[in-house]
């Protein structure tokens, strides 16, 4: 039981270190509170975006927290791929540069697994193969317009 846990932990951590470094230009790792007996403790993260000194996780900014959380989701995906992923406005607190990094990463991961992403911002909208538009009619019923990106651009909100 411990052996299979440690195998998964080490595998996900290796991915997390790599992805975090790429997304935030710094270093990050997953840390077990009790490495001897992992089930006795929890798991925390050491995250240093842009190689700042390590702060308590709680002290990170809204954008830094989003980026760190996404690095974890992507690390799990790399280690143990699920068939599809759905992300709903995960870029809400990201600045333009970080939104671009996430867009690039999703674009790449979408080669191995299906990604469905809800967003208002161009960094994600411009990269997808297919964009679906949703509108609310006067009859208060949602309707979907399938826009095939190869034909026209999709208006982003930013």
């Amino acid at each position, binding site marked *: 039981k411990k052996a299979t846990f440690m195998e998964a932990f080490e595998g996900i951590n290796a991915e997390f270190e790599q992805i975090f470094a790429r997304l935030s230009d710094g270093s990050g790792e997953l840390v077990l509170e009790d490495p001897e007996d992992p089930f006795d403790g929890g798991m925390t993260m050491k995250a240093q975006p842009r190689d700042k000194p390590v702060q308590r996780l709680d002290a990170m900014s809204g954008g830094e927290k989003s980026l760190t959380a996404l690095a974890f989701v992507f690390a799990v995906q790399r280690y143990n791929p699920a068939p599809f992923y*759905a992300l*709903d406005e995960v870029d809400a607190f990201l600045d333009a540069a970080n939104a671009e990094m996430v867009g690039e990463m999703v674009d790449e991961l979408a080669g191995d697994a299906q990604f469905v992403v809800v967003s208002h911002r161009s960094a994600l909208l411009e990269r997808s193969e297919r964009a679906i538009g949703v509108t609310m009619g006067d009859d208060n*019923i949602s309707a979907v317009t399938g826009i095939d990106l190869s034909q026209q651009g999709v208006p982003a909100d930013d």
Partner: protein
Amino acid sequence: MYIKELVLDDFKSFGRKTRIPFYQDFTTISGPNGSGKSNIIDSVLFALGLARTSGIRAEKLTDLIFDPSDEGVDSFAGEREASVEVILDNDDRTLTREQVVSAAGSDDVGDVDEIRVRRRVKQTDEEKYYSYYYLNDRAVNLSDIQDLLAAAGVTPEGYNVVMQGDVTEIITMSPFARRGIIDEIA
């Protein structure tokens, strides 16, 4: 395996039967506030049995049925129902025929190029409602669906769906809960 198409019928704000095609790689969903984007994500969690009702902004299952009236309308206006079908492309045989047959409890599941998971919620009177699951049109239980999906790498704790406003939850949850995600995967 990937989601090929969703079919929503009277689910939340989708008051007309609506087919939503998805690409194998990367599909984006955009539109004005309140248009129904997050409802599409909710529909996947609902159909696959991946979410608690509170997670998809409902107190009880009947809140998911399309309701054109003002909330104040208390009278029960007769039987109503909502349904969502998730059509998964299984060409790559992520799930074998045996696995599908064993989950469906029957051999009559058609070819398994496609795996169709459908969930209906039906309200028969003010207080009574029922929830039904179907796998390739065969009636099954939630646990059948969950076991089959777990074999394909889709679990309720799997963190493959991040809902609106929840992205930083991984950072704010307790260290124990965070370790629990790894337990689930191991």
